[in-house]
C-alpha cells in the first residue's frame, strides 16, 4: 500500500499511532493531566490523553476546565515544555576517579531514548528549531542535545483553541505548522462529527500514518480543518509585533518601564524555566566526602538569579531591574543578532506561569507606547 500524505483519522486511531511508535522503539511522550494541569509525560494509551479537558489562562493564572466535548487536544499549553526531554534541567557531564596522585576522567556514556513527541504545538515546534540552532547549529554542538534530538519523531497538534495568553499569530509561529514535523494533526470537533486531519511531513511520518487505519479526506473535511485553525488565530487576544522590536529595545535601555516592572518582578526564575527556548545552564562540581570521586554536573540556570552573572568581584546584574531587562533584551533583541531570529515564539507561558502575572507583551507595549527615553547603554546595575 502506498503511504498516504493526508488521511482522516478517528480519535480511536490515535491508539494505533501510539502503538505503531512504541513498536518502532520510540519512547512516546505526550499530554497528560497531572496535578491540575496538562503536562508532557510518558504516553502509552489513548486514555492517557487529556480527553475533554481545556484550560483557562491569564497572567499568573491557569485553571483546568471541562469541555462539553471529547476533544483530545482541546487544551492549549501547560507549564512543561519539550525542552525538559531534549535539554534536561540536570545532567552529569563527567566523573573523575582518584588514581594514585592524579585522577582519571570517566566520560559520561549517554544513551538517551529515541523520543516521539505527540501533541507538539506549532509554536513549540518553532521553539525546538530555535534550540536546534542554539545547541546544535553553531560551531559548538551540545552532543547530548544532538543525541536526543537526532531521531526525534514529531507529531504536531495544530491549535483549534487559542490559549488565554497565546500570541503566536503575531510572532508568525502558529497556530498551524507548515513544516518540520513527521505528522501534523488538526482536530475537528463538531456536534455531528469528531475527526483529525492528519498530514505526513516526512516519509517516516507517512509510513506510521499508514498504519493508523485512516481514510482519504474529502474537500469538506480539509476545509473544516483549515477553518478551525483560522478561528483559533482570530481568537488570539494578545500580540507582540514589529520588525523594529530589536532596535526599539536597544534604544530603550534606560526606559522608566524597567523600574516599574522591577517593582513587580519576583526574580524567581519561573519565566525562564517555562520558556521553551531559554537554554542557559551552569556547571557545578561535586565531590565525595572522601575525595575518591568528583563529578561535574550541568544544571539549568536562570538570568534572574544573582549568581548567574557572578564573576570575580560580584554580580554584574545585581538589581532585579537589570535582570528583567537582560532577559527581554536577550530574548527579543540580542537573540536576533546571535541566532538570526527572535527567541520568543509567542506561547505565552512566561505570562501564565509568572506568579504575579507579568506580561511580556504588555511590557513591550508600554515601552513602545511611551517612546524612547535615553539610549545610554551604560550603568547596568
Amino acid at each position: 500500500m502506498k503511504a498516504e500524505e493526508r488521511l482522516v483519522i478517528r480519535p480511536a486511531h490515535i491508539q494505533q499511532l501510539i502503538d505503531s511508535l512504541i513498536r518502532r522503539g520510540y519512547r512516546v511522550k505526550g499530554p497528560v493531566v497531572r496535578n491540575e494541569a496538562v503536562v508532557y509525560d510518558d504516553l502509552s494509551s489513548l486514555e492517557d490523553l487529556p480527553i475533554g479537558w481545556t484550560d483557562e489562562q491569564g497572567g499568573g493564572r491557569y485553571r483546568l476546565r471541562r469541555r462539553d466535548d471529547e476533544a483530545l487536544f482541546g487544551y492549549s499549553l501547560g507549564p512543561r515544555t519539550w525542552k525538559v526531554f531534549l535539554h534536561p534541567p540536570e545532567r552529569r557531564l563527567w566523573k573523575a576517579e582518584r588514581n594514585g596522585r592524579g585522577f582519571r576522567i570517566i566520560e559520561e556514556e549517554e544513551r538517551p531514548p529515541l523520543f516521539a513527541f505527540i501533541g507538539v504545538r506549532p509554536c513549540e515546534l518553532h521553539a525546538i528549531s530555535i534550540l536546534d540552532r542554539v545547541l546544535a547549529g553553531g560551531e559548538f554542538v551540545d552532543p547530548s542535545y544532538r543525541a536526543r534530538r537526532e531521531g526525534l519523531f514529531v507529531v504536531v497538534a495544530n491549535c483549534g483553541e487559542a490559549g488565554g495568553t497565546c500570541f503566536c499569530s503575531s510572532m508568525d509561529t502558529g497556530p498551524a505548522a507548515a513544516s518540520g514535523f513527521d505528522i501534523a494533526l488538526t482536530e475537528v470537533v463538531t456536534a455531528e462529527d469528531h475527526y483529525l486531519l492528519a498530514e505526513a511531513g516526512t516519509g517516516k511520518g507517512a509510513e506510521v500514518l499508514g498504519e493508523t487505519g485512516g481514510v482519504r479526506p474529502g474537500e469538506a473535511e480539509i476545509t473544516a480543518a483549515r477553518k478551525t485553525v483560522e478561528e483559533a488565530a482570530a481568537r488570539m487576544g494578545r500580540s507582540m509585533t514589529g520588525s523594529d522590536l530589536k532596535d526599539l529595545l536597544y534604544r530603550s535601555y534606560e526606559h522608566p518601564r524597567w523600574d516599574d516592572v522591577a517593582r513587580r518582578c519576583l526574580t524567581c526564575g519561573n519565566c525562564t524555566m517555562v520558556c521553551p527556548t531559554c537554554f542557559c545552564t551552569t556547571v557545578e562540581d561535586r565531590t565525595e566526602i572522601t575525595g575518591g570521586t568528583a563529578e561535574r554536573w550541568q544544571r539549568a540556570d536562570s538570568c534572574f538569579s544573582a549568581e548567574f552573572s557572578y564573576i570575580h568581584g560580584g554580580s554584574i546584574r545585581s538589581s532585579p531591574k537589570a535582570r528583567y531587562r537582560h532577559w527581554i533584551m536577550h530574548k527579543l533583541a540580542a537573540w536576533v543578532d546571535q541566532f538570526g531570529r527572535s527567541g520568543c515564539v509567542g506561547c505565552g507561558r512566561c505570562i501564565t506561569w509568572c506568579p504575579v502575572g507579568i506580561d511580556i507583551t504588555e511590557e513591550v507595549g508600554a515601552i513602545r507606547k511611551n517612546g524612547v527615553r535615553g539610549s545610554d547603554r551604560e550603568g547596568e546595575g
Partner: protein
Amino acid sequence: MGRKPKLAVYKFASCDGCQLSLLNCEEELMAVAGEMEIAYFLEASRAVVKGPYQLSLVEGSITTPRDAERVHQVRRASRFLVSIGACATSGGIQSLRNFKDVREFVSVVYATAEYIEALEKSTPISYHVRVDLELQGCPVGKDQLLEVISAFLHNRRPNVPAYSVCMECKKAGNVCVMVASGTPCLGPVTRAGCGAVCPAYQRGCYGCFGPSGSPNTISLSERWQQIGKGEEEIVRAFRSFNAYAEPFRRESEAYERLLTEKALRDSTSSS
C-alpha cells in the same frame, strides 16, 4: 597522611533538628568521621577534644546573656564558622518574641521570673560574630550540609544556591500551586534547598529555608491579596521559622501596621 581537621558542632537556642540532620546522614557520617576528627559534638558524644577547630557548625540563636558571651568563645576556637539552620541564620521560631515584650511572657510562664535571664530579642549568630557561611533551612538539608563539609574538605566553593524554591519546583516537574490552584505559596521569595517538598504535595511553600537572594516580598504579598488572602494571613505567613530574617520581618511588620491602623480607624468610627 597529615592530621585530620577537627570538626565541632555547637548548639545555642534551638530544637537540635539541624544537628539531627547531620546525625541522619548515617552512611555519609562514617565518611565524614573518616576524613575529620569529630572533636566536639555533644549531641553525639560527651567526649570532647580540645580546639581549635578547623570547621565549626553552629546551630541555634542567641537568646541569653551567657550565650552572647559564649558565641565569642566559639568564634575564637573556630577557623571556619558555618551557622546552620533558621535559628542560627535568622533567630528562628523563638524570634517571635522579638515582636512582643519578652518580660511579659516570662512573668506569665515562670513561677519565679527573677531566675530567668533572657535577652529581649532572639538573634542570629551573625549579629554577634563574623560568620563565614550561613546555611539556611528549618532544618538544614542533609545534602546541603554534606555539600558544605565536602567543599570545606576539598578546598572549593560550596554549591549553595540563593535562588528561589521555584527553580527546584520547575526542575522537579511540579505544577505551580499558586498559578494552577490559587494556593498561596512563599516559594518565589524562599531560598531553594529543600527540593520543593511542599509544592510536590500540592501545598504552598512555608518558607522554611528563609529569604532567597533577592526576595520581592512586597510584590508577592500584593498577589496574595489578589488571590483572596487577608493581611492577617500575610503577617502569619512571614512570621514563622524565619520571622526575624530582615526581608520577612519587614513584610510582616508592614502588614501588622496596616492592621493596627485599620483597627484604630474602626474604633474611632464606631465610637
